[in-house]
């Protein structure tokens, strides 16, 4: 246990140190990269609650990522164009304040997760994978044809949204915001895993009938986990959209779902810091391999394949060995 804690500490410190170093060396783009890692890791932390803790193989988490992104895009677009979003029951002109945008992103993606989860969790196994995939695609096609908000073109926001007391246009400050949220989510995720809910959820993944015989509802446990998971991924979506100052249906596509899942698995399913390691390694690979060959995705594919076949437990698993029972 000590080893993994130490490792986790090192990972999070490294994620903090790299942009600070980049700041000193005047390399703003490295800060942007680190911000991307923090945001994608946050999305992965969200998925990991469903996937790692709850054993729910959702191939539709892009839906929540995208809803978070669109929450930001829609609110900010209205604010920037001074077009009221609605005028009843009160006049609301959208917003460019991050805290409000985050709240809307979290609520909207949680609501979507509640509906999608309530339908999908009636099934399990492969059905669940395919149904979450299909719901994701449904939203994807909807977003493409939703011309009011740019359809396939997406929505561009000219200026990054504001955070009280900070200037988010300065890369390192925006990184700080994302990093703080990631730390918050990691903390939350750790507490959740150790809580009564986490214990029951984890048990439901291992042995559903046991959970039922002690008088707990696996369906309810999973639904709550799915909603929490979707909400965190949605928050990450809002940040990702703000990082790019842009949101488009691509955020909803099933490749995005696959990528978020890759972050989690690359790092190690169910490992608290798995998504952080996974996202960091993925972004590094993308930039290193992408520079070497147009066909870099072949190598990414081979690497993933090797990972699944020979290094189960992800990178952390390969480095630290089997997970020890929680104490």
């Amino acid at each position: 246990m000590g080893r993994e804690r130490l490792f986790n500490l090192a990972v999070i410190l490294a994620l903090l140190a790299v942009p600070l170093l980049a700041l000193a060396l005047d390399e703003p783009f490295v800060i942007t990269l680190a911000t991307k890692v923090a945001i994608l890791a946050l999305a992965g932390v969200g998925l990991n609650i469903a996937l790692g803790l709850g054993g729910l193989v959702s191939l539709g988490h892009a839906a929540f990522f995208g809803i978070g992104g669109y929450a930001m895009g829609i609110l900010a677009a209205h604010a920037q164009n001074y077009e009221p979003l609605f005028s009843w029951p009160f006049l609301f002109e959208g917003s460019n304040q991050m805290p409000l945008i985050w709240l809307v992103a979290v609520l909207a993606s949680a609501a979507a997760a509640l509906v999608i989860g309530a339908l999908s969790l009636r099934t399990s196994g492969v059905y669940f994978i395919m149904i979450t995939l299909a719901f994701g695609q449904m939203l994807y096609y909807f977003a493409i044809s939703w011309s009011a908000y740019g359809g396939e073109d997406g929505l561009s926001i000219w200026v990054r949204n504001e955070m009280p007391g900070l200037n988010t246009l300065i890369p390192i400050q925006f990184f700080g915001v994302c990093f703080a949220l990631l730390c918050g989510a990691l903390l939350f995720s750790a507490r959740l895993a150790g809580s009564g809910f986490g214990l029951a959820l984890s048990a439901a993944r291992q042995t559903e009938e046991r959970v039922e015989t002690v008088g707990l509802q696996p369906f309810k446990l999973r639904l709550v986990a799915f909603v929490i998971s979707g909400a965190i991924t949605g928050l990450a979506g809002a940040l990702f959209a703000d990082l790019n100052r842009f949101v488009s249906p691509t955020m909803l596509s099933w490749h995005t779902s696959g990528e978020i899942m890759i972050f989690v698995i690359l790092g190690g399913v169910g490992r608290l810091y798995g998504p952080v390691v996974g996202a960091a390694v993925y972004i590094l690979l993308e930039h290193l391999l992408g520079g070497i060959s147009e066909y870099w995705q072949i190598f990414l594919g081979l690497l993933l394949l090797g990972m699944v076949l020979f290094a189960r437990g992800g990178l952390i698993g390969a480095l630290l060995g089997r997970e020890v029972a929680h104490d």
Partner: protein
Amino acid sequence: MTDTSLSPPMQPVLRVEHLSKSFGALKASNDVSLDLYPGEIHALIGPNGAGKSTLIKQISGGLQPDMGRIELLGHDVTALDTVARARMGLGRTFQISSLAMEFSVLQNAVLGALGACGKSLGFFRNVMKDKALLEVAEEALSRVGLLQAAQQRTADLSHGQRRQLEVAVALTLKPRLFLMDEPMAGLGASGSKELTGFLDQLRYEAPILLVEHDMDAVFALADRISVLVYGAVIATGTADEIRNHPEVRRAYLGEEDET
């Protein structure tokens, strides 16, 4: 739970009436009726494929019967699911261990205590530091003699220890009755003997419907025995009655002698 009067004219804790369940042409349960009174151990025996598992599943709530009725503590629970029945006080152990293998022994016991406490689950507080739950869990573990193994990973337990943990988890639920599916299976002579002694005491806490292959244990423990063959109960009675029942001898005990 602590009924002291043991004479039969009281209300049964569990009453199964005319239960039937078919899978296609196969009648897995054929008009089964049985009951369980406070303080008794009622054993259910029968050859492989007699429909014991199907019956257990229907009683615990995992399977809906085609016909018939199940009553728990005087309430009709036929339409209720596993969770609801568990909450009413049905404590079940599994034939094939269904413990959370990644958990420590203590975590498995705490899970049981958590389900039984009836409070809403916390999202933030560390459940393994909850004194009330730990007390229940540790007491159950110590009763089955597993307390010293509390921090071990469940997957690393021996087969016998897993059977003990099964029983311990059921104990944490403080149930009104136990439904035990072959708790002796694979225990070995000394383990069986130990568990037999334990169950003998446990019956006064809550009655036990015991499905068991170990005939020595069954005849030593059971107040009554029901024999299930081809989905139907062919006889119910005391150990002696069953031993001498001609149909049972033919259909069941003869076969059992061969193994």
